[in-house]
């Protein structure tokens, strides 16, 4: 759905839902996932509908994902780090240590 302009830089590796994917150093988690063709960043707590980044500048909160186990992180404002663990956020954010099923 998106393709690079010019030649990409040497990639780093991150994990999305446990699967390794490549990212460009310095890019945001949102751009990394879009580059990899991912359109389902989260599902809504109300109807479970899939959502993907809408504004890319931190206003809409549609890009929420789990990063390193912490829920409701804005993918469009967070920069990738080598080895980062990213996961789809299903419904409401999970709170560490609090039961959720």
């Amino acid at each position, binding site marked *: 759905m998106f393709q690079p*302009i*010019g030649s990409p830089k040497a990639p780093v590796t991150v994990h999305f839902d446990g699967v390794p994917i490549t990212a460009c150093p310095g890019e945001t988690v949102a*751009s990394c996932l879009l580059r990899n063709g991912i359109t389902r960043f989260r599902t809504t707590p109300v109807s479970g509908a899939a959502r993907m980044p809408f*504004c890319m500048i931190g206003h*809409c909160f549609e890009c929420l994902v789990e990063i390193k186990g912490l829920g409701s992180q804005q993918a469009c404002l967070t920069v990738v780090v080598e080895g980062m663990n990213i996961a789809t956020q299903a419904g409401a954010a999970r709170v560490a240590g609090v039961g959720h099923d």
Partner: protein
Amino acid sequence: MTETGTSSSPTGAGAVAMDADVIVIGAGPAGMSAATELGAAGFRVIALDMNPSPGGQIYRAVELNLGDQRADPVLARALGRAYAAGWPLVARFRNQEGIDYRPDTTVWELRTDGTVGWQRAARGGYLRARHIVLANGAMERPMPFPGWTLPGVMTAGAVQTLIKSSRLKPTGRVVLAGTGPLLFLLADQLLKLGVKPALIARTDRFGDKMKALARLRPAALPAIAKGAGWMLNLRKAGIRTVTGVARLEAVGDDRVREVVVETGDETTRLPCDTLIVHDGIIPSIDLAQGAGLAVEWRAGDASWCPVTEQSGLASPSRGANLSAGASRIWITGDARQIGGADAAAAHGRLVGQTLAARLEAAETEALTAGPARIYARAMAPRAFIDAAFPQGQTSGDLADSTIVCRCEEITAGTIRSKARQGATDPDQLRGLLRCGMGPCQGRSCASTIGRLLSEEFDLKRPPRPFRGRPPVRPVPLCILATLESLDPELVSSEALNDKPDASGGIDSDV
């Protein structure tokens, strides 16, 4: 450096030490210009920026794209001269002594006494300055239509961000819909990047341009020539365009698959992978109204803007008693009044110079005449642009089944039925329906609800935005628990009053 410039003694704000003379929030053209002026006058400035590098949205990543050897010539050409104009602005800001630039920093609280709550990665705290320059820019007007929550529907600004920051361009069948200069600028940029949109569905009409001519001023001609250039390029490239779109729908399952466009007499269905929408931009008022500053509903533009003087000085709303004395907040750029980059830079300079003179207790007028003139010139095309590209999807009939609040998936019909039962205040609706209570804190629905209430219900006074309370952005508890500096207000006083009514300053007749 002047004596006043280095003074860290608070002026009438208790015994709390100041971290800087001025904190500037936002590093777009307005924030950078204000900070540069203040730094040049010898004052200590902390500039807080949500982005990783200065430039704001318009000049986003300008250093990365134009400044180093990795710059891609095709990209540089597509972004054009207007984008390159940001480069000297950023360079001056970077090189100016006295500015402590802090990127990747989110502001989650602003108070009229000059206190700012901030977060950067896993750290957070409070800062305090004698004055605050609020230059947090604008947002794209939320534009509800059936299917606008489907993955694959994005704003024009989002696609521009992907181009500038991530060097990504959309592929497949791309459709642009809506109105406003940004939509046509983006279409022109996409063409230069080799992406040929399948359709541009415009909500504006030729008649709008004719009506707008009455508002044409000679100073507006360069801006209009630029717009005409984009249109000509699109026509030459053979991009299919329809105008006067009355209804737009995105159809799909787990993502957009098809777009439906209706004009008065014709319905077009088109397969679509990415639907790019835009309906103009509106000031970001989250921090201003979270601080209890007065904001004003502008019916013609279906948005709120902060109440300020020409100098940018903001008015506290009626009954604001959070701080002793006059307002210490100055609002500039698109956060104050939509005017575009040149107007924002000029107004930022004006604010910086006015504030520098205020801090030195000097005369301001002669000083700021230059930027004031440039600002007036840069604002000259606005009346024409507003009339030529009237807001489209947001002012037509909003179907009952259309989602207005994206976070909680609340439709126009649900909001109408509660409003019919008497809940014609956004805060009542929020309490009853949870609209405005999701993660976006009402950013995506407030202006739509304001318009719906003001157009369809007999309100006694203009609609108010949701009452804002800090934190205006979610802050992880682990950060709140480990703030690096304590709340200065709690340190210096025992009373913690509630925030005043955000709209209080303007409806004093009620």
